[in-house]
């Protein structure tokens, strides 16, 4: 060897971490590499067996959080379209008084609306009856009587605000942290950061009921993260996960026989090529095989008691008259089943369950439409919270219920409409609630002004919510990053200082 550099100077460059790789993954890959190196000489039956058993090859393998977590799993109800907080959770007697009156013009300055014409807009009171519930005296409208019985387990945040007033951008912001495409959803970040407790089921599952949302599949995309972190849709009919069932005429026995041959052939190839990706491929096929039995077992509700099914509302048909939130007359039943499936998923270690229901976009006919949707959601969501609690799962399962923005105190006066029967998009102030996962029950956080126009106490930006959610999982939103296009990306916007709200935590 000729020229020399001091020894200390170089090793860092030799093992330059693969850019953008998760530090824990990097470590795992190194260990894996060592394992394979030692086995590389003659990979026979034993080495193959260890490959099959090795979950280390999976990027979904459980990982340690950055600091002590409060929550382990999350069930996130995304009510796309924006439910009216003024008719569900945030009572405004003053707004009722001012019904039909114009509002203080200064509040409208510089504000943009999707449909409202500012000049002629008037305030619209709520037809709902509100009452306080639980020891905490939390307010609920008469549309959510079951939820009201969970008052002391809920953390109700009434002072959320966001930057977007159109659906798809707003939904992207709430689900991915920014109103841009190509970014990973919350569930992708969580599984990227923590992996999943189960390898036999996807770590990030999406359940849907009713019609498709504005954002469609872009709401559970993994963006610049590998597709393994993408939300996997659990389907309401047919295979719960796509391609789960063997082709007709192929019994499990032959599937197993085929996979044994496949593993053997791939192992032979591995012995020649020494490429760790082949070992990963073998492990993936084994996981697939396990998923083939785990997913149907999960979807099979025959072991659930009739009382449980009834509590979740699986016996309910959509009320007559439907509503835009309905999709084929079985939305109530599907949504109830989704809630029950969500519990079964977190029981089995699924990290993140996203339940998406669209059609809360009530520009008109709000009373009727909201009644339909709230009726769909109220009983099963309350049942889920109680069921989780009773099974001791609520402590480690964060339940979130929310949307991309809220609805205006102004009635919607879109040209051509005779009467104001609905509300427009309102990014300035809206409400979401959480339960379990270490949040403080019975807490009503933040306050809006007397007509619900702006938050006046403890405003919470959507990104603050994101930062706090990650913190509950023991992840620092500024340190859970992924390098893409030369920049460190994270769930929260890099241009905005997001705050973690300690007050929410028990």
């Amino acid at each position, binding site marked *: *060897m000729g020229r020399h550099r001091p020894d200390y100077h*170089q090793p860092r460059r030799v093992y330059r971490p693969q850019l953008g790789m998760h530090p824990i993954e990097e470590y795992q890959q190194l260990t894996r590499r060592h394992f394979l190196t030692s086995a590389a000489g003659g990979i026979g039956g034993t080495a193959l067996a260890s490959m099959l058993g090795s979950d280390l090859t999976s990027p979904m393998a459980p990982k340690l959080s950055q600091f002590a977590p409060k929550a382990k799993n999350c069930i996130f109800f995304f009510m796309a379209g924006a439910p009216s907080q003024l008719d569900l959770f945030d009572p405004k007697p003053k707004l009722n008084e001012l019904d039909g009156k114009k509002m203080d013009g200064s509040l409208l300055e510089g504000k943009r609306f999707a449909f409202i014409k500012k000049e002629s807009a008037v305030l619209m009171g709520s037809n709902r009856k509100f009452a306080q519930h639980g020891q905490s005296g939390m307010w609920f409208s008469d549309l959510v009587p079951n939820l009201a019985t969970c008052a002391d387990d809920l953390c109700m945040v009434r002072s959320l605000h966001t930057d977007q007033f159109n*659906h798809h951008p707003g939904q992207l912001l709430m689900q991915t942290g920014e109103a841009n495409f190509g970014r990973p959803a919350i569930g992708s970040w969580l599984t990227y950061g923590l992996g999943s407790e189960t390898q036999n089921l996807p770590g990030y599952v999406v359940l849907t009921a009713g019609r498709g949302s504005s954002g469609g599949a*872009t709401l559970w995309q993994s963006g610049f993260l*590998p597709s*393994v972190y993408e939300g996997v849709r659990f389907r309401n009919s047919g295979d719960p996960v796509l391609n789960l069932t063997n*082709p007709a005429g192929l019994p499990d026995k032959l599937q197993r026989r085929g996979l044994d041959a496949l593993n053997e052939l791939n192992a032979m190839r591995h012995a020649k090529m020494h490429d760790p990706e082949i070992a990963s491929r073998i492990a993936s096929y084994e996981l697939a095989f396990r*998923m083939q039995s785990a997913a149907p077992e999960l979807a099979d509700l025959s072991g659930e008691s009739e009382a449980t099914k009834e509590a979740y509302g699986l016996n309910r048909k959509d009320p007559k008259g439907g509503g835009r939130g309905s999709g084929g007359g079985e939305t109530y039943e599907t949504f109830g089943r989704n809630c029950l499936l969500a519990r079964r998923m977190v029981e089995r270690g699924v990290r993140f369950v996203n339940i998406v229901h669209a059609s809360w976009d009530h520009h008109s006919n709000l009373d009727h439409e909201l009644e339909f949707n709230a009726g769909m959601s109220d009983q099963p969501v309350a049942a889920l919270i109680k069921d989780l609690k009773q099974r001791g799962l609520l402590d480690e399962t964060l339940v979130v219920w929310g949307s991309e923005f809220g609805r205006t105190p102004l009635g919607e006066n879109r040209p051509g409409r005779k009467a104001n029967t609905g509300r427009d998009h309102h990014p300035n102030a809206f409400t979401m609630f959480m339960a379990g996962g270490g949040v403080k029950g019975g807490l009503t956080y933040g306050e809006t002004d007397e007509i619900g126009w702006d938050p006046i106490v403890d405003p919470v930006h959507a990104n603050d919510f994101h930062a706090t959610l990650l913190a509950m999982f023991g992840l620092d939103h500024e340190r859970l990053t992924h390098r893409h296009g030369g920049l460190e990306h994270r769930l929260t916007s890099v241009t905005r200082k997001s705050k973690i709200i300690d007050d929410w935590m028990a």
Partner: protein
Amino acid sequence: MNFPKTPSLLRLAAILVVVLPVRAEVDFGRDVLPIFSAKCASCHGGVKKTSGFTFTNYRTLFAPAKSGAIPIVPGKPENSEVIARIGHADPDERMPPEGAALKPEEIETLKEWIASGAEWQEHWAFLPRNPGIRPRNKNTIWPVNGIDHYVLANLETARIEPSPEADRYTLIRRVALDLTGLPPGLIEVDAFVADKSPNAYEKIVDHYLASPHFGERWARHWLDQARYADSDGYEKDNARGDAWVWRQWVIDSLNHDQPFDQFTIEQIAGDLIPDATPGQHLATAFHRQTLFNREGGVDPEEDRTKRVIDRATTTATTWLGLTMQCAQCHDHPYDPITQKEFYQFYSFFNNADESTVGVPKFRVSDLAPKEDTLEKAKVVARAEAELWVKNISASLAYNAAHPSMTEVPKVLKAESASGAKLELQKDGSLLVTGAIPDKDVYTLRLSVSQADVSAIKLEVLPDKGLPKNGPGRAKNGNFVLEQILIEGSQLNSATADFHQQKLDPGGALKESEKTGWAISPEMGKAHQATFGLETPIAKPGEITVKLVQNYGGDHVIGRFRLSVISGEQRPVPSELHKLRPDQFDELEQHYFARINQTTAALVNELAEAKKRNRVNARVIRQRDKSPRPTYIFHRGDFLQPQKDLGVVQSAPPVLAHRFEKENATRLDLARWLVAEENPLTARVVSNVIWSHLFGEGLAPTLDDFGSRAPRPIHSRLLDWLANEFIRLGWSRKQLIKTIIMSRSYRQASAHRPDLISFDANNRLLHRQNRPRVEAEIVRDLHLSVSGLLSKKVGGESVFPPIPADVAAQSYASSFKWKTSSGSDRYRRGMYTFFKRTAPDPNLLTFDCPDSNLTVISRSSSNTPLMALATLQNEVFHEAAQTFTKNLLENPALQTDMERLTQAFRACLARFPEEDELVTLIGLLKDNREYYRDDKESALKLAPSKYSDPVEAAAWVATVRIITNLDEFIVRN
């Protein structure tokens, strides 16, 4: 040369020192700048300039900071505040304040650099390319081209032998997959293996380069960068029925090996190329792949601004490898790009409006048969054509030599039947005012002073007082002259400079309703028609002219002038009046198109075919009226333009190759991008091309050539390659061939256990890599080996079967997926209709990008969902069934061994080894045994009619395992 016996970290450390093109001292770009970028720039960068200095502007480092201390004093590390602070014992004083302290070796590096004078260099990628001198190799036999000299030099320094050349089965499959994305046919494989000629390999490379599938394969790579999709993106996510036309353009461009510089210029600024062809306009659709939001409440300007930002940043990433998007809100945190400079770049695209262009749906050559017939008919009519042209030319010459005299006669009386007023204007024209009648007749008495009047000319003129400026009084400015009469004379010919379809001036010679002269859609302009007299009016005197306009619907003339023409002119078709007698080509063209009945029919047919097969494609077109000024948006918010700070168009000044043109246009920008002096474009693009042939780039950060990208180990090779790209006239095929012909490319791809601990990631290119093929190619491979694949190139997107509930995920479940029938069910993966909010899950599962942002390198994951897809999904299962059918029906295959070998080779090209065959035969036997006892299942697994369903099912269950082999979806 020997392999190192005991590879160790320490040894590798030592080796890389020599491998890297180092001088004895610290290398700024490699050693120093990455430390500043990684550890310091988050506070002292483009966003935060804490204490008033920033590592993105080195001048601030050598001057006193706010504290008074000087961050860096060249030659004096002991006086440099940076050194004092990074090594400070007090954690409150130590820099960086958060995260780990700098490692001792990093501190040492910085000290050394300051001690040696703290020479600040530009970031390597911003400097001109410098391939250095070609490295000398000890082994002079191995290298076949420049690439190999560089690769081998590194390997030799590291005392590593390159891997042996891959066997021929692997080679041909590798080349076929890389160039066409399809597996090689077994005939081609066997011919190549048997070919003893010295250029056997080059022959197959040329063969696949010439394949029409080459364009498909490489177009798909480009579509990733262009964020191509078949729908709008947001919410309703409307289908873009014309998107594929541009995809077709990209395929054609690659197949014709259009030089990359032209490819660039046409896509960035095709609309600004003088006399741009429709194809050049179409090229600009690169930037029409942006998302579009049609939600009811969207602010269109906000959405437009978003698209313009996307165009600017996509251009920067794709051509320059720069991440400019962060500079839309603030100065770039790491790279020396200010927010103002971002908007200078943005402004090139700010007046690039969205428009459409009519383009042929298929390549012009597809019209060749019709053109052929026409050409043949022209040959037949040639003699007749020549005679006709000679006559007309003579008439034109005569007319030119005998100019006519024109007079605007005095108007003695002008009356309207409806009672409208005809007011004489200074120019001798008459303006019609008053209530607009449904119909009208104007009668004019004129005094003519000229003798021998042979014709009368009617000019219709625009006027501001008329609807749409006239010249008619109908709402759209049109009129219909139903008849023109001169009392006592007969008119017998009529010509006009323009006439509406089916309403030509000849119709005004006779009295019949609904015929006459009209001018739609050419309203708002002056027009004229000339009517010839059967017999000239010999003497001067008074004449009476009647303009009958009984068409109805206000179609009456609003302003007009009559003149008389004297002197005999020979008849020439009105369209040809303006031609010179020597414009023979134009005359001949007229003959074939209008006079000769046979050819006229063919010309017409061809024109119709072209018109019928046209589609309006979305393109970019420069806004010429009221251009938008560009302002810096405060914090990137389009509602906060900083109007006091004007912005001129310019490219980022970070590069050694400055953009210095005043009043520059998008076309100038495009040319600057591909100027030879531009240090980035050729590097970025050849790096991407390399990555498609090696699975990784020579510079590993394909999408980031900014300051945080360390100088790659292979920077000299990258510079050589980039220069070679330009030297080859930006020919992509030539560059690809150069890489593929290299020995470096031809190496075997087996990982080498002896090198795992020291070059596991193959940074030194001691072997080929084994990338998994992309999502589309997974589909193509399965369909191809089964015999199902339709090899049609290009055309509209198709709808292969997907699960019903996928489309239902679209907004309000509004999207209907109409499954294609026939061979369109089996097209290549790249033609599957891509609905952004509800894409085909088979594509996404295998890491196909979501097409919302530019993607330069795809990720490649390895998940159970992929295994489930290729094992169970109907597309792949159907392929296995058809594959089986073809195996069992092939009369050349008789035994299990022959069939298994055939199936194995169809997938992998190589022959199976003995133990592989043993495993497969064991599986086949067990499958047979099972189905012998379960015929019902056998009929389900292999539902086609077979004489022996047990046999068929046993084979399907075996074949599907072969098509699930790792090796099948890996390019080895």
